[in-house]
């Protein structure tokens, strides 16, 4: 399988947040991580959160030291991933995220018949 790099940039973790501080890396360069494994704990003005890994792959580079402030949109971590395992979006749009467990609010009452 072909390998390729994927760089994950710091997402906006709340509505309109512009930056976050790296508290603690939970992975190191060379680690092979599963998707959704804990990646890094960051602190925003609202809260501290652990970001789950957006990819399965090997950690190629960490772009920030602990205690460093990272602006939203800046590189956080680069993964080496298996190209074929990672669907590439088309020319427009994105690959829909597959919810592990679809959210619901409505509960059903079984029929009597």
């Amino acid at each position: 399988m072909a390998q390729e790099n994927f760089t994950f940039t710091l997402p906006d973790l709340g509505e309109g947040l512009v930056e976050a501080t790296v508290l603690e890396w939970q992975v190191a360069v060379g680690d092979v991580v599963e998707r959704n494994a804990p990646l890094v704990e960051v602190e925003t003005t609202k809260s501290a959160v652990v970001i789950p890994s957006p990819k399965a792959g090997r950690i190629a580079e960490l772009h920030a030291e602990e205690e460093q402030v990272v602006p939203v949109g800046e590189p956080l971590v680069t993964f080496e991933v298996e190209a074929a395992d990672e669907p590439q979006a088309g020319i427009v749009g994105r690959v829909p995220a597959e919810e592990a467990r679809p959210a619901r609010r409505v509960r059903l009452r079984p029929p009597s018949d």
Partner: protein
Amino acid sequence: MTELIERADTAADTPVVELSMQQAINRALSDLLTEDPEVLVFGEDVGTLGGVFRVTEGLQKEFGDKRVFDTPLAESAIMGMAVGLAMNGWRPVPELQFDGFAYPAIDQIVNQVARMNYRTRGATPMPITLRLPSFGGIQAPEHHGESLEALFAHTPGLKVVAPSDPADAYSLLLQSVRSDDPVVYMEPKARYWERRPVQLREPSDPIGTSRIVRPGRHATLIAWGAMVHRCVQVAELAAEDGVDLEVLDLRWLKPIDAAGLAASVSRTRRAVVVHEAPLTAGLGAEVATLVTENCFRDLAAPVQRVTGFDVPYPAGPLEPQYLPTIDRVLLAVQRTLEY
């Protein structure tokens, strides 16, 4: 997982491979180009680039630029060209890059492709399969998330199909291209990428056959394209509540499997049809009518429709609110159960 269990008894000689729908369609095109020297694949960016969703990746390299080629950017001419190629004995498989750009080609599709065999009393068959990446769910720009099935199904002379998973995408495309009638093959973009273990099979059901994806006894969810997956999710959640839902993948939107619908709904006595397209004059109305005509005495409740709203297809953030949600389908199920 019911799909896989359903398939386990067939095609024992072909290996189970893990494929996305993108790859399954690519495989089908490759097999079709191999089996029939008259098959031609063309459209915008399908050659060198391999298609904007990589569905035609590698085909030009393998089959050459006479069989797989890029055209200038003009949808009407692409479909018009398909008509002329068909008149000259070829079996064209044009791609129009996105659903919303089929509109500029509607004249050729409706006035020419659909009618040429009729107009010439069978002298010029139109074995054209229009591949049309369709439906929403990928947060794409405007005109890239449309559902045109009702328009095509309403056009005499066209057949219309929408696969929901990689295995069906493969065999339904073989069936469409081999058909001597024009077929609009609607590819659910949102389902392009998910990989599934599948067996690639020759088509075994006649054109116009639906498929029970998940058997159940309390109500039938009827869907096509990406909404089949949505209905399977709903059925799994409903099972937690003790409600056993059947999911019927219509697959062929013309001809519609009226008998298959009737067989399922006669058993479950309740039906919910789910589609992405707007409600009014959508294909759900046709399905509801067929069910009502054929199962009136068996029905415990009126057929429910869960569809997109009668609004233009919205931008990304509103997409999840427009497309039928799990809760909306569950509420519709509840309405049929409590009627």
